[in-house]
């Protein structure tokens, strides 16, 4: 068979069909974490530390166990010590499994408010909660350390006597009792600043924020008599959960089956095992299936938020607008265990620009908060908040249009990256030109209104994906992948299968498999599913076509090399009378060697970078400091938009999250390290009244690493908003913002300082 030809145009890719799982979701039939039930199921409740930093002196469960209906109680003593040290978890980074196990349930010390101390299984959830309250834990309370600068200061309370620095993108090296460090550089920083005509330097702080998925973490575990456990859970990655449970509970991986249920949002926060090992151990001890549900407060207190930061940034440019130097020091919270997204934040901070002299320094800092996790383009929103504002200030001082300034310095295809290799094809200049040409860029504004523009970068991810396709005798196709569907990827993958096979998308039935039914895959993270799992699907489709071509050759009594396949039509080069469409040939498979199916596992390397820009108009109420978002236009390079409406949806969702980060969202800890706003009333995410319609402009600079040119799209839209809003506030009222969130109090303080300075 010839290599299947890429269709001249696309038949399926680039259209907007309706998702096959949508009907279940609008009728309430879809089964999410808490919708799954099994007979005889008990309910778990987790007892959590009320202290941010303490030694566990003793745990007495006797009273709780005496309560009728209580079936099992577990503590850290019920868990083995993991024998596997550092483990790679895809975009989750590399981390020490001892830390992961300690994060699941504390052994000797608790490291944050909400850290698990014990768990109960009982006949109903209310009873389990009552029993948990009867467990007596004695603590030796230790002073907590709640921000990166205090944690790095001499004499700070020390969390861990020793620790293995984690590695998320890049290794860090322990340099302080609570911190590890990485450094990157290029050129000569002193020479760079000496050449600069204009230098700007500022410090920035940002608060801890949460992904805010609307469904919390929920799972159910059941054992069988062979000692195998099945876990039904809501997760971004069934295999990731399986691996963690197997290591933390000391089980062979083949003895853990993880069945992914529908997931009510993740954004990077749902691929760590928090409650799954607890449910498994409770179910084993109680000898009954156990469901564990995390409440909203638990999810805010004790899952994996995105780090608060302290960033010191200095940048210099020549009068003609050429950037010549950047010196950035970024300190990111790691939380109670090492391995936060510092490297990603550092590496993405300036990668979209060509700057000859650079020093980037990052610190991963232990503080008494939950272990930080990726949240949509992990680390990039924080570092862009600093860098994009400095660029705006440089452009202002030079007297250059801020888009022109960025255009002058933007990284282009082949430019050498700080990472040491040339940039793959990238459409940054095209994106910035699109911003300039858009009518929004020059639209009039009123008093106290301002417009901001920021430009964002994210790497994207490849990582391992698997797919299986089986051809039915009626020409329909079953498709199974291990990529959990957070937003419609069943459809975007089915579209790529249909495109490759030359059939209608309605003829492909996509499912998400469990860990016993489909090949290994890493999580749905890093904007990688439509890209990387898409490649697995296309490769598998090619294998199917190849096998089907062999069958056609068999039926036509010719050589497979003579079979041509195009758009699902099989023809014989030597006999024009020979022709099958996909369905006709599918019908003949059973009698020409049996049904056809194929499988692929891929780990694509050629990941397409992601770029986005945001234009945002704000109005500042100078009496209260409240900022209203008036208009948003988001620009993004999708490589090739498989389902343009879904791409726009990803962009709109990311922008809205970014606006929440910009204006409202933050973790509020008191001096003792208690989280004071663990509810959705006080952790204030944007509602429909807080955001306007979000216009989306999609550009397509194909990624040569994908057969159809696809880039991931999910992550980068969250990157520009915080910086763009800060710049818009500056353009509205003339103050420079240096803290996230830019809540009314902060803006009002800036206005007061400005008035005081003017009066002086």
């Amino acid at each position, binding site marked *: 068979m010839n290599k299947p030809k890429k269709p001249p145009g696309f038949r399926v890719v680039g259209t907007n069909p309706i998702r096959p799982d*949508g009907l279940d979701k609008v009728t309430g039939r879809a089964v999410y974490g808490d919708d799954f039930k099994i007979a005889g199921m008990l309910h778990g409740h987790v007892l959590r530390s009320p202290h941010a930093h303490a030694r566990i002196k003793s745990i007495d469960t006797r009273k709780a166990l005496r309560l009728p209906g209580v079936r099992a109680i577990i503590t850290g003593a019920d868990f083995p010590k993991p024998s596997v040290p550092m483990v790679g978890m895809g975009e989750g980074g590399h981390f020490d499994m001892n830390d992961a196990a300690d994060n699941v349930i504390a052994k000797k010390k608790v490291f944050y408010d909400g850290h698990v101390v014990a768990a109960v299984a009982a006949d109903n959830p209310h009873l389990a909660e009552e029993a948990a309250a009867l467990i007596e834990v004695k603590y030796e309370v230790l002073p907590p350390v709640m921000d990166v600068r205090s944690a790095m200061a001499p004499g700070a309370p020390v969390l861990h006597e020793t620790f293995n620095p984690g590695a998320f993108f890049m290794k860090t090296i322990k340099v302080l009792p609570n911190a590890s460090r990485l450094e990157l550089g290029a050129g000569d920083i002193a020479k760079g600043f000496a050449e600069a005509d204009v230098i700007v330097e500022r410090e920035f702080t940002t608060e801890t924020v949460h992904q805010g998925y609307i469904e919390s973490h929920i799972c159910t575990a059941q054992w069988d008599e062979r000692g195998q456990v099945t876990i039904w859970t809501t997760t971004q990655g069934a295999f990731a959960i399986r691996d963690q449970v197997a290591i933390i509970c000391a089980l062979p991986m083949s003895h853990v089956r993880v069945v992914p249920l529908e997931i009510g949002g993740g954004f990077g926060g749902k691929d760590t095992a928090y409650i799954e090992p607890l449910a498994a151990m409770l179910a084993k001890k109680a000898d009954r299936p156990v469901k564990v549900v995390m409440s909203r407060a638990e999810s805010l207190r004790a899952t994996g938020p995105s780090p608060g930061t302290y960033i010191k940034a200095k940048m210099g440019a020549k009068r003609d607008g050429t950037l010549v130097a950047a010196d950035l020091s970024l300190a990111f919270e790691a939380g109670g265990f090492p391995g936060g997204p510092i490297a990603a934040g550092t590496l993405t901070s300036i990668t979209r620009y060509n700057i000859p002299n650079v020093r980037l320094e990052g610190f991963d800092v232990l503080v008494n908060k939950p272990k930080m996790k990726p949240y949509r383009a992990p680390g990039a929103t924080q570092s862009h908040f600093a860098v994009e504002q400095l660029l705006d200030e440089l452009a202002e001082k030079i007297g250059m249009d801020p888009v022109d300034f960025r255009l002058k310095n933007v990284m282009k295809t082949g430019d050498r990256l700080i990472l040491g290799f040339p940039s793959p094809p990238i459409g940054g200049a095209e994106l910035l030109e699109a911003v300039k040409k858009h009518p929004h860029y020059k639209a009039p504004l009123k008093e106290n209104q301002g417009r901001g523009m920021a430009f964002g970068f994210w790497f994207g991810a490849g990582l391992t994906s698997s797919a299986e396709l089986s051809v039915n005798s009626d020409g329909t196709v079953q498709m199974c992948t291990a990529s959990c569907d957070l937003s419609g990827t069943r459809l975007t993958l089915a579209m790529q299968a249909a495109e490759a096979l030359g059939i209608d998308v309605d003829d492909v039935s996509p499912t998400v498999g469990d860990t016993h039914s489909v090949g290994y895959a890493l999580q749905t993270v890093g904007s990688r599913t439509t890209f990387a799992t898409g490649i697995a699907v296309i490769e598998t489709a090619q294998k199917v076509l190849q096998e089907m071509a062999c069958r056609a050759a068999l039926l036509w009594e010719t050589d497979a090399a003579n079979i041509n396949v195009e758009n699902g039509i099989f023809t014989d080069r030597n006999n024009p009378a020979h022709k099958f469409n996909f369905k006709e040939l599918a019908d003949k498979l059973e009698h020409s060697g049996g049904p056809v199916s194929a499988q692929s596992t891929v780990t694509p390397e050629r990941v397409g970078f992601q770029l986005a820009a945001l234009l945002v108009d704000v109005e500042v109420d100078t009496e209260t400091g409240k900022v209203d978002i008036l208009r948003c236009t988001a620009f993004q390079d999708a490589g090739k938009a498989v389902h343009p409406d879904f791409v726009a949806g990803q962009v709109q969702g990311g922008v809205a999250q970014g606006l929440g980060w910009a204006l409202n969202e933050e973790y509020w800890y008191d001096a003792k390290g208690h989280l004071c706003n663990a509810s959705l009333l006080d952790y204030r995410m944007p*509602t429909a009244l807080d955001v306007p319609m979000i216009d989306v402009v999609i550009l397509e600079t194909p990624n040569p690493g994908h057969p159809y040119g696809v880039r991931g799209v999910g992550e980068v839209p969250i990157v520009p908003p915080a910086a763009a809003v800060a710049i818009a506030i500056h353009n509205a009222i003339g103050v420079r913002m240096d803290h996230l969130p830019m809540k009314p109090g902060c803006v009002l303080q800036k206005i007061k300082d400005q008035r005081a300075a003017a009066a002086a």
Partner: protein
Amino acid sequence: MSTKKRVAAKVNGDAVEFLCEPRQSLLEVLREVLSMTGTKEGCNDGNCGACSVIVDGTLVNSCCMLGVEIDGCEVQTVEGLSKNGRLHPLQKTFLEETGMQCGFCTPGFLMSSKALLDAHPDPNEHQIRHWLSGNLCRCTGYDKIVRAVKKAARMQEAEK
């Protein structure tokens, strides 16, 4: 532990009778007692709207109402939106306009949108945003949800 109470109500037009503890919320009754899991729990304290249902014509967060309170009431949930295999216009437009991503908040948004359209058959964008401001969606940024509700209003008008 408290004694269970007998409650009689109508849910999506069907008469139901059940026993529930006075401490159980309507949300818990719907999901655990009546096994209607379409209504979702996102926060259990009235701040996310994922559990929105309509009780005697009024939009409520079912996590903030007790199960015993619906005695003699008529409750509408997402399970009752489609009739005889025919989708409600809102269900159609949420699909067509991609007014969802993970779909978890969708049942709540559908019920809030239905309450809105019952009260204001031709809402403007501000009315839509106002009526939906008790429902949190973290995936969509609301843009496509607002479009879906607008389109459903037009569709309902055309069907009249």
